[in-house]
């Protein structure tokens, strides 16, 4: 039982990190649906780098760097060129799926390094992810930088006349967001399940994407949601543990999406909007053209 909980926390760590990266980008107005692709890249290149250098540190650094690179690629398309953000993100996903399958194929198999030690029985990355949630919340809601990020995501033309560089702010958010996604991928391939196989993620990134909508763009709700989703995901791997015979794992995997859809339905009700306004950043997904 304890092992199941520890595994759930590890799973939720990956959701938290990736979704936190997505949340940062979305608060600045950039939707990145390529999250799964960036995670695949981070996981694969982190895995290869760690195996070749026999160093976890190198593996994680490479994963973060490739995340930053892909984040800036998405930024280039969606901020500089102003193309449709969904199309750009989809491109990154397909690219990640194809390229990592091609490059990673010779590395199929276990990592073959000592496991990363746990702290009080849980992964150190879980603790790190909680700290990052707190940092993200503090930065977004209590700092000047956070106010700038939020205003860019709500109404970029207002931000511009208030003296904020919209493009730079958005770039910063998608690049840091990409780093978190790449890192999340490496946590999967180096810690959670250190075995390389083609397309091993199978939807983790999309769950993280749904999680951001579930969270109403609030880091603390995001943390709660990722604990819930981590538990459900782990359950989907071993449904017989609690509910033997009820659905297959493939059905269980849709549960986070069903929950997210329910949350989105509540959000779109008149009652919710009258009480809370629209939680969604107003300019989310819209390219900003100056002038």
């Amino acid at each position, binding site marked *: 039982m304890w092992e199941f909980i520890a595994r759930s926390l590890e799973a939720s760590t990956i959701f938290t990190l990736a979704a936190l990266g997505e949340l940062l980008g979305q608060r600045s107005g950039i939707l990145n649906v390529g999250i799964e692709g960036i995670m695949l890249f981070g996981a694969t290149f982190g895995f290869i780098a760690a195996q070749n250098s026999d160093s976890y540190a190198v593996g994680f650094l490479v994963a973060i760097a490739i995340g930053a690179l892909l984040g800036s690629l998405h930024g280039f398309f969606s901020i500089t060129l102003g193309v449709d953000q969904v199309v750009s993100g989809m491109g990154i996903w397909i690219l990640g799926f194809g390229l990592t399958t091609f490059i990673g194929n010779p590395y199929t198999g276990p990592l073959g390094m000592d496991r990363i030690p746990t702290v009080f029985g849980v992964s150190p990355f879980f603790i790190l992810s909680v700290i990052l949630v707190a940092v993200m919340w503090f930065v977004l809601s*209590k*700092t*000047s*930088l*956070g*106010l*700038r990020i*939020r*205003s860019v995501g*709500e*109404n970029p*033309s*207002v*931000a511009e*006349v*208030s*003296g*904020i560089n919209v493009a730079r702010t958005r770039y910063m958010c998608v690049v840091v967001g990409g780093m978190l996604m790449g890192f999340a991928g490496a946590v999967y391939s180096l810690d959670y399940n250190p075995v390389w196989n083609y397309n091993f993620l199978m939807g983790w990134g999309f769950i993280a994407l749904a999680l951001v909508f579930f969270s109403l763009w609030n880091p603390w709700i995001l943390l709660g949601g990722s604990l819930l989703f981590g538990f459900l995901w782990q359950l989907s791997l071993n449904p017989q543990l609690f509910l033997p015979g009820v659905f297959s794992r493939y059905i269980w995997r849709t549960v986070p999406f069903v929950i997210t859809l329910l949350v989105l339905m509540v959000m779109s*009700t*008149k*009652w919710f*909007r*009258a009480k809370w*306004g*629209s939680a969604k*950043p*107003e300019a989310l997904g819209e390219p900003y053209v100056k002038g």
Partner: protein
Amino acid sequence: MTKELLAGRERGATILELRGITKRFPGVVANDQIDFEMRAGEIHAILGENGAGKTTLMKILYGIMQPDEGDIYVRGQRVKFHSPLNAIELGIGMVHQNRKLVNAHTVTENIILGHPNAGRVLNLRRAEQEIDELCRRYGFKIDLRAAVWQLSEGEKQVVEILKALYRGAKILILDEPTSALAPPETKKLLSSVEAMADDELAIIPFITHKLPIVLSTSHRVTVLRGGRVIARFDTSSATEQSLAREMVGREVLFRVERPAVETGKPVLQVDNLSALSSRGFMAVKNVTFTVREGEIFGIAGVSGNGQHELAEVLAGLRKPEAGKVTLDGAEITDAPPLARWQAGLGYIPSERNAVGSIGEFSLVENVAMNYYFDDKYARNGLVDYANIRKLTEEMIVDYDVATPNADVKAKNLSGGNLQKVILARVLTRGPRLVIANLPTQGLDVGATEFVQNKLIEAKKNKAAVLLISEDLDEILAISDWIAPMYEGEFMGILPADEANRERVGALMAGLKSEREAQ
């Protein structure tokens, strides 16, 4: 402090000067050798119709646009603005007509956004104290912790003013400052503006209509026409007539004839109608009224008091929560829009670009949108474009629409000309009921007069006209019945001869008697 005292008071040093500002766009000189000067403590209005060059001048003043020729001096120093930031740094603040605020953020967050001294970690409490101090000094009242989307238009304007002041503005540009305000709100704003002028701020209101505001508040007024400075007055020597004459270039009658037409049977009957807004609050509350043949029923109110929702319910675009609507005795409460058009309802929506027309469509196609369901213009699923083109061309002549031909895209027409097309499209059908929602908003004096006369013509032709307007003077000028609307309710229904500015103004601000408005 009264106007006479202010005008007589010695003004401060020259704080802003423009010399020979010229800005050209392909085919048009938007600003032609404009000279302008402001002193500290002065309220200097800039008056002009649409297209007179006000917007361009405003953008140049705030650094959004750069002039082709000419110089700007601030406190005697020649300056160049590359962006609004340069202007802000030199103490120029701008209050935009289409508010530049983040809806999801609080008032305080909006005010401190982008402020260089905001600090890395926000000190909201300190900021609130400083903003409170500004509010006290100039007599603003606002909840600093409310989200902007919860505020009224007037309150949003206050936030914009506070934002500029918080940034240290000494020169304040106000773009159409009173266009969205009810008379009592206008009064409050003007007293705050005067307090700011007393505090040595220089204030430049840009105004299209609302000449009385200019006369009652400003010290000097500069009139623009065709991109040039046509006249400059000390306000004490100006009159409404003289300002309008300079602005339009001809005598303007401030009277639209209101012919008495014999009223006939009821056309529109609304009984205890209620409806929700898109945000989910009750926007229209138990509204009951009747509009008869040959009369104009005017609904007066500040934006956001339910007029818009009421118009949408009557046009079949929004579902009512309760109540009954009949047109010529037949119930249409739940009828779809098309059935209403066929029953003789003509609808002129408030947003002529977004709802009234499709910008990418030609005028012919836009006219077809209102005729495709007529046997005369469409048969067996085929639209008879030749016939509709003929109709459109007739409309262009009859309504004096300035356009090269009927195939021009709607987005290329000026606001006034587009409104004429929309008006023609509705009125040419000979409707029983015309619902005109803000039909003259943003139009200049000439086009406004034209639209108002057409509505009166419709009434003469025995149509019932429901006019919704935020311009109280317009309502008073052409309506036979006046219903001030406040927070979804009619505060009364007054016959035209019992209505006056003070009474209706107080009612539309939610006050039960005029005394409360003082």
